[in-house]
C-alpha cells in the first residue's frame, strides 16, 4: 500500500539571493506555528491564496493554514504521490487540481487514522476549525475543495466569499460595473467577519484591520518597486528565486514580516546591482516566465536554464500585486477597511484593461506580457502548462498566438507537467526541450 512508499530524494535548487534562501526556514516555522496553534487551541482556518481575506484573519488572530502551500511542500519534497493515490482511492479523478487531491487525500487519511499519516512532511496538516473558500474566476477548487473536504470533516464549517471581478469586454468598460462588484464583495467580506466571529469566538478588531490594510498597501508598493529592480542588466534575481519570495506575498500579506522581508530583498538587490552582480555570471538570454504555476518538484530546472546563461528577470506568476499608487483611485481615501480591500481587488484584476483598449485586437493578459517584454528587455518567453489546474493554464497558447498577432513574434517554449504530480514529469525530455529552445534563442540573436 501507499503508506510504505518512501519519499524520493529531492534536488535542492540553488538560490541567487540571500533573501530567497531564507524562505525555506520561514515556511517551516509557519507550518510549525499552525501545529502549535492546534495545541494551544487557537482557531485555525484552512485558507487559499488570492482570496482577499489575509488582513481579516490576521486582525482576528486566526491562524491560517495555507492548503495550497502544504500540497506544494509535499510536491517539492517529492512526497505527494501517496496522498494523490489516497484521493484517487476515494474516487476523486486524478485529473483534478493536484493541490486539492493532495490535501483531500491527506485529510481523508488523517481523519481515518485519527492522527497524522506516517512521516507527514513537516509535521503534517492539522484539522482546522473553519475552512475559507471563495467563489471567483480564479478556480473552481476554491469553492469545491472544502466542500469535498467536509466529506471527511462534516463538523468543520465552510464560508465561501464571493469575489468576482469584471471580465474584459469589447462593448463596455469595467468602470460601468465596478460599483456593484465592490458593493457585493463588501457584503461578502462582512459575512465572512460575522462567520468567523460566530465560529471562532474571536472578535474583529476594526482598528487593527485598518492598520493591516494600510500595511498591505505599503507592502504591495514595496514589492512592486523591489521586483522592478530586476530590470537591471545583468538581472540580480530570477523567477526561480521568485518562486520562493512568493511566500511573503501570498502567505504572509498583512504582516510586518512580509514588509520587512521585502525591505531586505530590496537592499540586497540594490547592492547586487551596484556590484553588477547578476544571477548568472555571463547573462546571455533574458526570459519572461509568462504564465503557469511551477513544477514544485523540478525547481532545479531554473538552475538548468541558468547554466545556459538564461535568466528570468520577470514572471507573471505570483506577481499578485501592483503599485497601488498606479491605480486610478486613491485607496488611502477609502477609510472603510472592507471597502478598501474590495476596491484594491477590483483594481488589481482590471489593471491592464486600459492598455488593452489602446491596441486594436489586444487583451489585458497580452498587454502585460508586452509591457514586461519591453521593460525587462526580454528575448524569449517560457510558460508551464500544469495539467491539473484549469485556472492559470487555459489560454497560454492563445496568449502566445495573440501576442504574435498584435505585437511581434518572439521565441517561446511551453513546458508541460504539473504542480504536484511528479508522474507527469520527464526530466530528460524537459531538458532536451530547453536545449532546443536555447538554440532557437541563439539563432535569433545571431
Amino acid at each position, binding site marked *: 500500500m501507499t503508506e510504505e512508499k518512501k519519499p524520493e530524494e529531492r534536488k535542492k535548487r540553488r538560490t541567487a539571493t540571500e533573501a530567497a534562501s531564507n524562505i525555506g526556514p520561514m515556511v517551516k516555522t509557519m507550518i510549525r506555528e499552525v501545529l502549535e496553534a492546534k495545541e494551544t487551541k487557537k482557531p485555525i482556518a484552512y485558507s487559499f491564496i488570492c482570496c482577499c481575506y489575509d488582513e481579516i484573519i490576521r486582525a482576528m488572530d486566526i491562524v491560517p493554514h495555507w492548503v495550497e502551500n502544504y500540497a506544494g511542500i509535499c510536491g517539492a519534497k517529492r512526497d505527494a504521490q501517496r496522498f494523490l493515490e489516497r484521493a484517487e482511492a476515494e474516487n476523486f*479523478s486524478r485529473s*483534478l487540481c493536484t493541490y486539492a487531491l493532495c490535501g483531500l487525500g491527506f485529510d481523508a487519511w488523517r481523519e481515518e487514522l485519527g492522527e497524522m499519516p506516517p512521516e507527514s512532511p513537516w509535521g503534517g496538516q492539522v484539522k482546522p476549525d473553519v475552512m475559507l473558500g471563495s467563489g471567483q474566476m480564479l478556480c473552481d477548487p476554491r469553492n*469545491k475543495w472544502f466542500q*469535498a473536504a467536509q*466529506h471527511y470533516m462534516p463538523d468543520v464549517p465552510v464560508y465561501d466569499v464571493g469575489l*468576482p471581478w469584471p471580465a474584459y469586454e*469589447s462593448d463596455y468598460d469595467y468602470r460601468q460595473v465596478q460599483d456593484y462588484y465592490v458593493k457585493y464583495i463588501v457584503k461578502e467580506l462582512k459575512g465572512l467577519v460575522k462567520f468567523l466571529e460566530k465560529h471562532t469566538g474571536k472578535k474583529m478588531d476594526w482598528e487593527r484591520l485598518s492598520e493591516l490594510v494600510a500595511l498591505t498597501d505599503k507592502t504591495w508598493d514595496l514589492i512592486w518597486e523591489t521586483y522592478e529592480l530586476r530590470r537591471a542588466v545583468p538581472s540580480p534575481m530570477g523567477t526561480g528565486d521568485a518562486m520562493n519570495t512568493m511566500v511573503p506575498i501570498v502567505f504572509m500579506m498583512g504582516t510586518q514580516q512580509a514588509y520587512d522581508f521585502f525591505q531586505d530583498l530590496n537592499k540586497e538587490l540594490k547592492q547586487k546591482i551596484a556590484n553588477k552582480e547578476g544571477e548568472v555570471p555571463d547573462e546571455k538570454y533574458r526570459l519572461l516566465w509568462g504564465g503557469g504555476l511551477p513544477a514544485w518538484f523540478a525547481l532545479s530546472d531554473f538552475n538548468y536554464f541558468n547554466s545556459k546563461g538564461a535568466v528570468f528577470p520577470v514572471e507573471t506568476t505570483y506577481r499578485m500585486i501592483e503599485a497601488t499608487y498606479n491605480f486610478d483611485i486613491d485607496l488611502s481615501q477609502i477609510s472603510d477597511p472592507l471597502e478598501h480591500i474590495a476596491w484594491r481587488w477590483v483594481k488589481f484584476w482590471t489593471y491592464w484593461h486600459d492598455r488593452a483598449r489602446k491596441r486594436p485586437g489586444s487583451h489585458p493578459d497580452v498587454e502585460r506580457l508586452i509591457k514586461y517584454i519591453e521593460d525587462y528587455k526580454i528575448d524569449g518567453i517560457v510558460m508551464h502548462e500544469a495539467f491539473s489546474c484549469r485556472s492559470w493554464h487555459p489560454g497560454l497558447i492563445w496568449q502566445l498566438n495573440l501576442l504574435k498577432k498584435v505585437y511581434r513574434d518572439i521565441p517561446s517554449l511551453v513546458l508541460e507537467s504539473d504542480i504536484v504530480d511528479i508522474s507527469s514529469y520527464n526530466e530528460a525530455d524537459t531538458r532536451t526541450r530547453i536545449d532546443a529552445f536555447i538554440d532557437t534563442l541563439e539563432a535569433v540573436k545571431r
Partner: protein
Amino acid sequence: MPEKVALKGLAAADKYYQDYGLRARELKKQGKKVIGYLCAFTPAEIITAAGFIPFRIKGDVDEPITKADTEMETIICPLVRSCFDMALKGNYEFLDGLVVPHACDSICRTYDIWKYTLNLPYSHFINMPHGTDDASLGFYREVLDTFRTSLGKFAGKEISDQALAGAIKLHNQNRAKVKELYQLRKSSPPLISGEELTKVLIAAMSLPVEESIEMLGDVIAEVKGRGGLSARKQARIMVIGAQVDDIAFIKLIEDSGAWVVADDLCPGAREFLALVDVSADPLAGLAERYLRKVKCGRTYREMKGNYQEYLEDRFGHMGRMIDDFGVDGVVLYIYKYCDPYGFEVPQIKSYIEAKGTPVLYLEDEYSMSTIGRLRTRIQAFLELLGSK
C-alpha cells in the same frame, strides 16, 4: 413562421439531432440572428426577448478533436474542447454572437479563447456568482441587467420588461412540456426510451423556443399514442453527470439491457425542471431560478443545518427522482477535467448508496472510443443489479 422540415414529433427530433443546427441555418438564411451559447446557465430567455434565436453549442463524440488544440490546451474539459473544435471546423458558422456564462473553469477560463478566435459580431460573458446567499443573488441580478443592456445594444433596441416576461412565459411552457415528457418515463416499461428522450432534448436546444414547444407537444402525443415499449429490460437506470449532449452513452446503457428512465443531466432534468417565477421584476425571477433553483455542482450552496441536511439540500432532488421514477441503479458519469462534478463524486456516491441504491462511477473523455470501453463495466453493473 418560415418553412421548416415537414417531419413531426420523434422524426423531427431525429432529424434536428442528426443535422444539429439545421433549423438555425434555415432561419439565418431568412434573416434571423442566432446567438450561440454554452451551458445551461445562459439565461436563454434574455436572448429570446431580444428577438434572437438562442442556440446551444454542442460537441460531437464521433469527431476527433483536431483543430481546437492549436488554440486551446488539452487540459480543458473534453466536452468544451469538442464544442470549440466543432465551432472552429465551421459547424456553427451561422452564429452572430456568443454568450458564455461563468459555469466552471473549463468554460469561464476559455471565454477569451472563444471570443478572440471566433471573432463574432457579438460576445458576452455572464459573470454568475458561485454563492446563493442574498448578496450573491442581488449581484447576479445586476450581472443579468448588464447582459440585458449589452444585448439590447447589439439588437438596436432596449429589451423591455414586457419582452422579458413574454420570453419567460415561453421558456416556462417549454419546460412544462419537458416535465410532461418525463412523466412518460415513469411506467414500466417506460413509454419513451432514454435514447429517444435525449435526442428530443438535444434537438430542442437548437430550436427557437416556440418551435421547441411545438415539437415537444407532438412528441408527447405520438409517444402516448403508440403504447409502451416492448423490449424486456432488466433494470431502470438514472444517469447523473454534467452536460451529456450526445446519445452515445445513453444508448450504450440501453443496448446493454437497461432502460434509462431518469437523469440529473443537462440537457435533462437539471436544466428543464425548474421554472422561472413570474414576478414583477423579471430579472429577479431569472436570477432566482438560475442561481437557486437549478442545482448544479458549479453553484456553491451555503450550509444550513447539519451536514446531513446539507447533503439533502444539495442532492435531495436526486434521491427524490430515484423514488419517483423507480430507479434501480445510478450511473455517475463524469468527464475527465470536470472540476464541479469531479469534486462531488464521493459525496454523491455515498449519499445515494446510503439510500440503498447502487452507484456505478465512470470517468470518461467525451469520445466514441472511450465510451465504448465502458461497456464491460456497465454490463457488470447491470448484472449486479439483476442479481439483487
